[in-house]
């Protein structure tokens, strides 16, 4: 009796951790092993640890890199999960040559743990590998005609956004909302009042961005706050949902870094990710190309207009310019006890 009970708890825990590691990487690994076997090369492995959204996007980038001169002879192996979980796994000793996480503070924690060099941000993109923006996912045909942040505050509008406690992507979403309301009302108190209404309209706080999308696809809510690339990917996978680029949004910047002691091929891969070729492949799965990288014309299936997939956002906020960087933003808005948004969320249900 005891044993069964404890076993069920342990199993549960393990399942929670492994949930995201689906069959895709397993297939990729098998395929890669098969290829390596045919080629007869020694087959060195590069371990890439990414946050969950990168799983589908990385398939093509891995393949393309393995065909370059720098990448020949290497097999890339991806591990995916929630950004914070991946961060802790790497600190705990999981093999990682490059990390690609959702939030800068997650990489900073790896710096603190000695896994990533201090100067990881000293490059053209300040350590950023992929960009996206916060958008409104809406149910097919946008039945509630949601186009602006004000529409989200109307009585009866149901919002789905992941829980900022457990999910990195939720922080992007809530900051975007706060920034938009700050801009509209022109004062912190006004923004907080609007955020209060916003929180009251949230019907579901799933534990990750991916679960939020799944929940929304199954009919929960009228608006899904999400990454543009996440919604485009869902549409590419045949999901019947629409999305709206709001007039004000936040630039989502996902950091990447090589780990201490990683082979040169790891930084070659990182450079490839940021190159025009790499960014074009990412763009095809819905990421906005990094500023200054010209990917030429790219057709993105699943975008509202596949030939003009990334329309300019009227007011595009950034964490650095509008919120004083992640350190300041985390403390001010998401501190576990005193964060403005943490408190508003905790009060929202009472």
């Amino acid at each position: 009796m005891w044993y069964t009970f404890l076993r069920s708890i342990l199993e549960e825990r393990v399942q929670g951790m492994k949930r995201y590691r689906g069959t895709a990487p397993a297939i990729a690994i098998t395929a890669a092993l098969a290829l390596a076997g045919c080629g007869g090369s020694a087959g060195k492995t590069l371990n890439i640890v990414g946050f969950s959204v990168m799983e589908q996007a990385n398939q093509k980038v891995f393949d393309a890199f393995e065909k370059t001169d720098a990448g020949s002879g290497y097999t890339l192996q991806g591990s995916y999960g929630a950004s914070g979980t991946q961060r802790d796994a790497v600190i705990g000793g999981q093999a990682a040559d490059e990390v690609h996480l959702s939030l800068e503070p997650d990489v900073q924690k790896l710096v603190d743990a000695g896994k990533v060099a201090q100067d990881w941000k000293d490059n053209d993109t300040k350590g950023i590998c992929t960009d996206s923006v916060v958008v409104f996912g809406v149910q097919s045909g946008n039945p509630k005609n949601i186009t602006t942040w004000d529409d989200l505050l109307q009585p009866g509008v149901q919002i789905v956004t992941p829980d900022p406690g457990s999910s990195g992507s939720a922080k992007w979403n809530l900051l975007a909302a706060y920034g938009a309301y700050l801009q509209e009302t022109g004062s912190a108190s006004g923004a907080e009042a609007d955020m209060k209404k916003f929180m009251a309209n949230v019907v579901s706080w799933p534990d990750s961005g991916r679960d939020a999308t799944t929940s929304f696809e199954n009919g929960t809510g009228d608006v899904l706050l999400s990454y543009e690339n996440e919604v485009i990917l869902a549409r590419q996978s045949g999901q019947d949902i629409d999305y709206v680029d709001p007039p004000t949004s936040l630039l989502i910047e996902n950091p990447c870094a090589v780990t201490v002691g990683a082979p040169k091929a790891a930084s070659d891969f990182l450079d490839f990710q940021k190159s025009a070729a790499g960014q074009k492949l990412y763009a095809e799965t819905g990421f906005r190309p990094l500023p200054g990288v010209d990917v030429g014309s790219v057709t993105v299936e699943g975008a509202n207009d596949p030939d003009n997939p990334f329309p300019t956002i009227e007011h595009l906020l950034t964490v650095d310019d509008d919120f004083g960087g992640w350190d300041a933003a985390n403390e001010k808005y998401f501190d576990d006890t005193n964060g403005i948004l943490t408190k508003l969320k905790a009060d929202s249900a009472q």
Partner: protein
Amino acid sequence: MLWFSLLVLIPLAALVVKATGGGLGTFVDVLKGSETRDALWLTVKTSLVVTIVNVVVGTLIAWELVRDRPVAGVGDWVWGKVRVVVDLVIDVPFALPTIVAGLVLLGLYGPHSPIGLHWAPTTQRAILAAIAFVTLPFVVRSVQPVLEELDTDVEDAAASLGANRLTVLRRIVLPALVPAIFAGASMSFARGLSEYGSLVLLSSNSPHRTETVSVRLFSFIEQSDTRSASALATILLIVALLAIVVLDVVQRRVAARG
């Protein structure tokens, strides 16, 4: 015993050490958070209700599987087949990866519900349904083998001595089943406490309303607050222990009285 130690005792000891490393203060801090308290209460409350339901329904299902023919007039052959199918299907909620269970239940109780029950993801009833779903097999599976072993001769003897069916059930059958029922109940309760996977999609995680303790735990882990996480896990462990001890005591009482 070595296997048991490696698998269970060492991780548990590590957990408790980690949690107590911060002193009693960590526990107090964790319980001070009203969000955590509400999550804990919701989880305990729901698991209790589900366990009570499982005790009744699970025992009935086991009975149906082993003994009864529910509808008079149905041929032995048909009932035999039905029994085989039910016997197979009963384990599915346990065997299914819980995230899949969550997805299935969201389809059933969610906004697109084909049966018109729009419980998920905003009501506590959805959580109740999910926990009931994944814990159903526990009581059934612990009662069923005991019932199969139970000799009907004693019941027949009691009946021939003038006991009516209810008396037979109360004095002969139930006392034999009580240990199994309670063993199933404690597994069902413990599993309810720790349920995570199926709730990920089914519950809206709204603070104070539909956030369960396992989800709260996950938040602590994601925020690298491992100390609070282990403290909360230890509290959960104590609640489970307490429940098992209480159930055990009650079971002994009941058995002694029977």
